[in-house]
C-alpha cells in the first residue's frame, strides 16, 4: 500500500489518511487539486471562504477572521462564552482602563504593544494558566540590560533596518506605555496565535524565542528588497515596540514561542493543541538547542521551503506586507494550495437573486458555482528531506514527548504512621541513652588513649603563656542554637582564661552576640564566684560583617559610647585598662559556629598585619572544623578547639578543678554509639527495601 510521509513529523502514513496519525498534521490539501491552467494575478485579494474553511480545518474548528475585518473585536466577542469570568469582565466598557493597564504591564513584559481586549484570545483552547505561562516566551529578551539592547539594535540594523524606523503604536496602547516597554514575553493577540498555529500546521518557522532569530522565509524577504525587508526586519531590532499589525508575520515567532516556552508537556490539552515542539517545557534542558536544527530556520525542511515559496508568492503580488493584516500573511502559505475564485468586481457583473430569502440582493452568492477556476498549485514534494542527525533528533524528540505523556509516579511519601513510629523510637532511645548518664552521673568514658591533638595543645599553650591579668578580646560569633555546644566546647578554655586572671572584652558580629556573651560570662562567674563586671566588658554588636570587623580591629575603642556625665566611662574600667589599640590585647579568642565568620576574623587580622602582634585562638563548632582546620594548618591561627571532643582534650591537658566537658562526654559518647547503631541497622534495612522495590519496577520496564 502506498504511503505518504507526514510533512511535519516525517512519519509514514497510509495514503488514504487525511491527517497524520502521529502528529495530526494535515496530509492532503483541503480542496480538490486545481486544474493546471489557473494562475494567480497580482493585486488579487485573498478569498474569504476558502481561507476560513482552511483555517477552520487546520485549527480544528478554530474561528476564522475574514479579510478586511478588525480581528480583535470579532474574535473576543465570539470567545466571550469561553472566557473565564475575570476575563469577561475585561470586556466590560467600564473596565477598559484596567484592561489598558493590564495591557501596558504585559507590554512592559513583552516589548509588544498589547491590545488588551485581545488578550484573552491566546487562551483559546488552552488551559487558562497557560496564558500566564505564555507570557514568558521572550523572557530571554528582557534579560539583557537595556543598554545592551542597543547593541542588538545595531545588530538588527546591520540586517537592513533603516535606523529611522519608527515603531508604530497600537491604538490600544498609549505612547506612555511604549516608553515602559522592556521586552518581556507576553501572550500575543488572537490572530497572532492563529497565524502562529497555522504556521505550525504548515510547518512554518518556529524560532526559539530570541527576537533576533528571524524566521527563515522572513530573512529571505530581506533579500527581495528594502521595501519589504525593512518592516519585517524591524522585528528584532525594535522588538520592544513592534506594532502588532506587523507582528503577524514576524511574530509567528513569539506567538509560537509562547506556548512552546510555557506549556509543560504534562498538560495534555496543550499537547493536543500544539505541535510536538510546543509540548517541550520551559526548561533549557527540556528543549535542548539541537531542536533549533529541527526548525525550518535551517531552511532544510519542506515546511521552510513551502514558507519560502509562499513568500515568493507574496513577493509576486504588489502588495506591501505592511498593508496586510497579520492573519492574512499567516494565511499566505496556505493560500498557495487553495483554489481561487475570480470574484466579479463591479456590481454589473454580479448577479441578482431573484427568488428565495435572498431575492433582490446582489452579489450575495459567488457568480461562479462551485469552486470555479482554480490555479495550479506550486509543486510540492511530500518527501521529507532530513539528514540522519535530524532523524535522530526527531526520534529523541518523540521520546521526550512520550516520556512527558507518561504520568510520572511521584515518590510515595512514607506512611505517616510508620514514619512517626520510627521517629518516636529514635527519640525514645536517644533520650534514654543520653539522659541516663546525666541523671545518674554515670561515667563510662573509659581511658583516653590518644595524645592531645596538636591544635588543642597549641591553644592551651597560648593561654598558659599569657601574662597575669592580661586583656583578652573574645568574639562571641555564634547563634543561640549552637550556644549549648559552644559553651561546652569553650568552657575549659574560658575557665582557663579566668584562672589566668584574664580581663575580657566581648564583641560579636551576631545580633544576639551581646546577650550570648552576658549569658556565658554570667554562668562562668556563678561557678567561679566573681562579679562579671569586674572581669569583662561587653562592647556589643559589630554590624557590617567583614567591614565592621575591619573597622573594629582598626580602632576597638571607637565602638564605645562617648563619655557622658553621670555614666562611668568604660575606657576607665578594669577590663580596658591599658588598652588603647588592638595590639594591646594579649590574645584574640573567636568562638564561632560558622566557618565564614571565622574566615572573616582570620583574614582581617592577616590583612591588617596583626597576626604577629596578637595571637589568635578559635573555638569552633564540630560542624565547622573541616573548613577551619586549613587555617590552622597554614598557621593563620595559633590554636583550634573544635566541639566537645576538643574541649575534652583541653580539659584533660590543663586539668582544671571544675570539669565542664567531662560530665557531658559519657552521654555524648553513648549518644553517638546509639546513632551509629541506628544508622547502620536502619541504613541496611532501607537499602534492602529499596533494592527489592526496584526489582518490580525493572521488570515492568522490561515488559
Amino acid at each position, binding site marked *: 500500500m502506498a504511503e505518504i510521509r507526514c510533512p511535519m513529523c516525517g512519519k509514514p502514513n497510509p495514503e488514504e489518511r487525511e491527517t497524520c496519525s502521529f502528529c495530526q498534521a494535515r496530509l492532503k490539501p483541503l480542496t480538490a487539486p486545481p486544474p493546471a491552467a489557473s494562475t494567480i494575478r497580482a493585486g488579487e485579494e485573498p478569498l474569504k471562504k476558502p481561507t476560513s474553511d482552511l483555517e477552520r480545518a487546520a485549527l480544528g474548528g478554530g474561528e476564522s477572521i475574514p479579510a478586511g475585518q478588525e480581528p480583535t473585536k470579532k474574535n473576543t466577542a465570539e470567545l466571550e462564552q469561553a472566557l473565564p469570568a475575570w476575563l469577561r469582565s475585561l470586556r466590560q466598557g467600564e473596565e477598559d482602563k484596567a484592561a489598558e493597564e493590564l495591557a501596558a504591564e504585559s507590554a512592559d513584559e513583552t516589548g509588544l504593544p498589547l491590545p488588551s481586549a485581545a488578550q484573552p484570545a491566546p487562551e483559546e483552547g488552552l488551559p487558562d494558566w497557560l496564558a500566564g505561562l505564555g507570557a514568558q516566551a521572550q523572557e530571554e529578551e528582557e534579560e539583557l540590560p*537595556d543598554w545592551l539592547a542597543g547593541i542588538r539594535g545595531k545588530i538588527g540594523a546591520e540586517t537592513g533596518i533603516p535606523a529611522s524606523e519608527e515603531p508604530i503604536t497600537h491604538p490600544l496602547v498609549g505612547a506612555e506605555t511604549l516608553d515602559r516597554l522592556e521586552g518581556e514575553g507576553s501572550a500575543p493577540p488572537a490572530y497572532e496565535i492563529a497565524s502562529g498555529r497555522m504556521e505550525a500546521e504548515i510547518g512554518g518557522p518556529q524560532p526559539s524565542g530570541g527576537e533576533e532569530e528571524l524566521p527563515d522565509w522572513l530573512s529571505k524577504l530581506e533579500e527581495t528588497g528594502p521595501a519589504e525587508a525593512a518592516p519585517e526586519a524591524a522585528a528584532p531590532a525594535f522588538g520592544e515596540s513592534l506594532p502588532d499589525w506587523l507582528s503577524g508575520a514576524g511574530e509567528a515567532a513569539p506567538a509560537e514561542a509562547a506556548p512552546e516556552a510555557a506549556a509543560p508537556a504534562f498538560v495534555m490539552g496543550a499537547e493536543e493543541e500544539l505541535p510536538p515542539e510546543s509540548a517541550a517545557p520551559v526548561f533549557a534542558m527540556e528543549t535542548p538547542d539541537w531542536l533549533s536544527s529541527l526548525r525550518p530556520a535551517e531552511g532544510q525542511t519542506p515546511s521552510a521551503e513551502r514558507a519560502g515559496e509562499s513568500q515568493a508568492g507574496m513577493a509576486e503580488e504588489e502588495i506591501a506586507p505592511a498593508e496586510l493584516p497579520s492573519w492574512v500573511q499567516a494565511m499566505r502559505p496556505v493560500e498557495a494550495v487553495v483554489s481561487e475564485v475570480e470574484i466579479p468586481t463591479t456590481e454589473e457583473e454580479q448577479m441578482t437573486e431573484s427568488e428565495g430569502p435572498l431575492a433582490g440582493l446582489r452579489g450575495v452568492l459567488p457568480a461562479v458555482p462551485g469552486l470555479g477556476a482554480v490555479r495550479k498549485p506550486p509543486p510540492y514534494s511530500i518527501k521529507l528531506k532530513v539528514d540522519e542527525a535530524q532523524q535522530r533528533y526527531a526520534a529523541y524528540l518523540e521520546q521526550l514527548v512520550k516520556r512527558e505523556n507518561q504520568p510520572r509516579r511521584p515518590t510515595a511519601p512514607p506512611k505517616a504512621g510508620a514514619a512517626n513510629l520510627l521517629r518516636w523510637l529514635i527519640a525514645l532511645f536517644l533520650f534514654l541513652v543520653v539522659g541516663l548518664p546525666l541523671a545518674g552521673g554515670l561515667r563510662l568514658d573509659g581511658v583516653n588513649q590518644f595524645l592531645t591533638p596538636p591544635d588543642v595543645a597549641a591553644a592551651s599553650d597560648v593561654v598558659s603563656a599569657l601574662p597575669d591579668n592580661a586583656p583578652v578580646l573574645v568574639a562571641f560569633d555564634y547563634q543561640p542554637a549552637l550556644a549549648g555546644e559552644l559553651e561546652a566546647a569553650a568552657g575549659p578554655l574560658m575557665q582557663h582564661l579566668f584562672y589566668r586572671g584574664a580581663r575580657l572584652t566581648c564583641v560579636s558580629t551576631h545580633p544576639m552576640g551581646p546577650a550570648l556573651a*552576658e549569658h556565658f560570662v554570667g554562668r562562668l562567674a556563678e561557678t567561679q564566684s566573681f562579679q562579671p563586671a569586674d572581669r569583662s566588658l561587653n562592647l*556589643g554588636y559589630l554590624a557590617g560583617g567583614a*567591614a565592621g570587623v575591619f573597622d573594629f580591629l582598626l580602632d576597638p575603642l571607637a565602638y564605645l559610647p562617648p563619655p557622658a556625665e553621670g555614666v562611668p566611662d568604660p575606657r576607665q574600667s578594669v577590663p580596658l585598662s591599658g588598652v588603647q589599640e588592638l595590639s594591646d590585647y594579649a590574645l584574640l579568642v573567636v568562638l564561632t559556629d560558622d566557618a565564614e565568620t571565622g574566615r572573616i576574623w582570620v583574614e582581617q587580622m592577616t590583612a591588617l598585619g596583626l597576626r604577629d602582634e596578637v595571637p589568635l585562638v578559635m573555638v569552633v563548632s564540630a560542624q565547622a572544623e573541616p573548613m577551619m582546620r586549613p587555617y590552622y594548618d597554614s598557621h593563620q591561627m595559633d590554636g583550634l578547639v573544635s566541639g566537645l571532643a576538643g574541649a575534652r582534650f583541653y580539659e584533660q591537658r590543663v586539668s582544671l578543678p571544675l570539669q565542664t566537658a567531662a560530665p557531658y562526654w559519657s552521654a555524648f559518647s553513648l549518644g553517638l554509639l546509639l546513632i551509629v547503631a541506628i544508622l547502620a541497622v536502619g*541504613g541496611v534495612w532501607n537499602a534492602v527495601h529499596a533494592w527489592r522495590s526496584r526489582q518490580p519496577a525493572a521488570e515492568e520496564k522490561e515488559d
Partner: protein
Amino acid sequence: MKLRGLLSTAFAIAFGLIVLLGYFLEFQPFYGLRLIFVEWAVILAGFAVLVGLGNLVTVHIKKIRAREKGGFYGLLLIFSLLMTFLAGLAWGPEHPNMVLLFRTVQFPVEASLMALLTVSLAYASVRMLRRRLNLFSVVFLGTVLVILLGTASLPLLGDVPFVGDWVRPFVSQVIAGAGARGILIGVALGTLTTGLRVLLGADRPYGGK
C-alpha cells in the same frame, strides 16, 4: 523602563561598581568610597530590619483580622515582639533584664530546636537509602558512621583505635578538606557570576525583575 526603575538600576550599578573597585584598588578614592557606601548599606539594613518588623506584625494582624487559623498565636507574637522591642530600646540589649529574658525564652527554645535535629537528622539518614539508593549515598552514610565512631569513646575501652586516631583525621582533614575546597571554590565562581549579573543590571530584584 520607567524613570524610577532607571533610577533604581542606576543606583545598584553605580554604587555596586564603586564598592567593587574599592575592594580591588585599596587606595583613595575607591577605598574610602567603599567604606562609606558599605556603611550606608549597613544603615539601610538597619532600616530594613524595622520594615521587617512591620512586615512581621502586619502579616499576623492580617491573619487575626481574617480569623485565619493561628490568629491567637499571631497575637502572642505581636505582643512578645513589641514588649521585647520596647524593653530593649529602653534598657539596652546588655541590661540584666534583657539577658534574663534571653535566658528564659530565646536560649531554651533555640537550643531545644537544635536538639530536635538529633532525631530529625537520624530519621533522615535512616530513610536516605530508601529514597536514593546509589553508591554516593552509601559512601555518605559510611563516612558518617566512621566519623561518629571515631569521635566517640567506647564504654570502658576508651577511644576507638585506628578509626579514631588515623582514619578519622585522614578522612576529615585530607579527603573532606579537598572536597570542601572544591565546593567552596565552585560556590565562589557561582557567586562571582551572580553578583556580576546584578552589577550588569540583568538581575533587578529591586522592583525590576
